């Protein structure tokens, strides 16, 4: 079963987020990283770019597939995790340490799930 830390919030599209020093930190969940398989390339936005809740802000490529990563909130990109550009496999190794971006001025959140609700989403997808 996928690792789903209780202290984080989640989206149905498999992003995790948390608040840290007034910024919203966003990454991809263990379930999503595992479903994608070996991640070999990540395309991130630039600092200062606007992101919109529910819209793609990055793409993640595994050996077999490409997948969009959606922003859980609207706001402006304050920081990107440049280490991921050279070492995308860190998302597979440590999905909750390998954050993608930090967003400032966050507003207009998508529907956010707690760990229990997100676990139900994952369980339903495994069934399908």
């Amino acid at each position, binding site marked *: 079963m996928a690792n789903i830390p209780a202290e984080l919030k989640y989206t149905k599209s498999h992003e995790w987020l948390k608040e840290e020093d007034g910024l919203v930190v966003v990454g991809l969940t263990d379930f999503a990283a595992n479903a994608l*398989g*070996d991640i*070999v*390339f990540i*395309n991130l936005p630039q600092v200062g770019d606007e992101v919109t809740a529910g819209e793609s802000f990055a*793409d993640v*490529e*595994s*050996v*077999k597939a*490409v997948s969009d990563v959606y922003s859980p909130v609207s706001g402006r990109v304050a920081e990107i995790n440049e280490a991921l*550009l050279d070492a995308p496999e860190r998302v597979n190794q440590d999905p909750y340490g390998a954050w993608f971006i930090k967003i400032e001025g966050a507003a207009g959140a998508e529907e956010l799930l707690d760990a229990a609700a997100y676990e139900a989403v994952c369980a339903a997808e495994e069934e399908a």
Partner: protein
Amino acid sequence: MELKTPLYDVHIAEGGRIVPFAGYLLPVQYGTGVVAEHMAVREKAGLFDVSHMGEITFKGPTALRTLNHILTNDFTGMKAGRVRYSVMCNERGGCVDDVLVYKFGEEDYLVVVNASNRRKDFAHMAANTLEGTEIEDVSDSLAQVALQGPASPAIMEKLLPRERIPQKYYTALRGVEIDGMNCMISRTGYTGENGYEIYTACENAEKLWKTLRVAGAEFGLIPCGLGARDTLRLEAAMPLYGHEMDEDITPLEAGLSFGVKLGKEEFIGRDALVAAGEPKRVRVGLAVTGRGIIREHQDVFIGGELIGRTTSGTHCPYLGRAAAMALIDAKHAALGTAVEADVRGRRVAAEIVPLPFYVKKD
């Protein structure tokens, strides 16, 4: 409704992630993942279930003439125990499929076809078979596994004396007993590595798989899925039907002229190929120099000029970089040409490089 190969239960037990492919339920990867499976084949050994492949026998006094009529390669003078690659063309010179032909006797051949084309191929073959040739689709009675990687010969030598193992690339031995199971062993593969493809009756499949897994354990053999099969063949620049070739792409455009004998008296598609002359578009290799991964069906440009389209592309785990194959205008195909591919609206830079991307060391 997808079919299961005789190894379906084994894949589940081995932790395979099952996907539908060419009408079969097959593992795309096992627990270790595509990259680890790919590297195992390059450095140690990997075991694949390729039971979905189709097998059609050609028997009778005119079998050779039938094969020379329906296939582009020339089988005249081929020795028993040899294997030969060929394309099967339609009248327009497009590819119906690409196949392997095994010769076991003067009137006894086996043709191995792609799973997705099996029904279409058999219909095409049946419509063009000469009197005195009997063809039969024996796919449902045969399982096939591929043992690939540099450790493959050592693994086979644990199970068989050397003289019962084919020693040369593109040779095969029939009637070989592995642990009491009657097998046909072929020194072929789809990975660019040394290895074998082993055919046996479906009821032997599970036992054969387990026998090979046990024999290979000390060499680091792991089971490998369709994901690694695709990255391995792409790194080795081996064409895949439906990508590098199809009914509207000729084998000459696909860079398969080594398997097309235009000097032969006749074969289906020959006239169209001769009439078309030098191909106006050709298959090339693209090494990705920019950031990103170029995949199939992406437009290729030089500046504003559209010069072709990719046919396959992925991250190549052994090379550690992305590569693609493309069909492009022949006049822009010079090695070293800088091009760009449109990757979902973003231009990614690449360079035309020689194929294959990877060549095994020995």
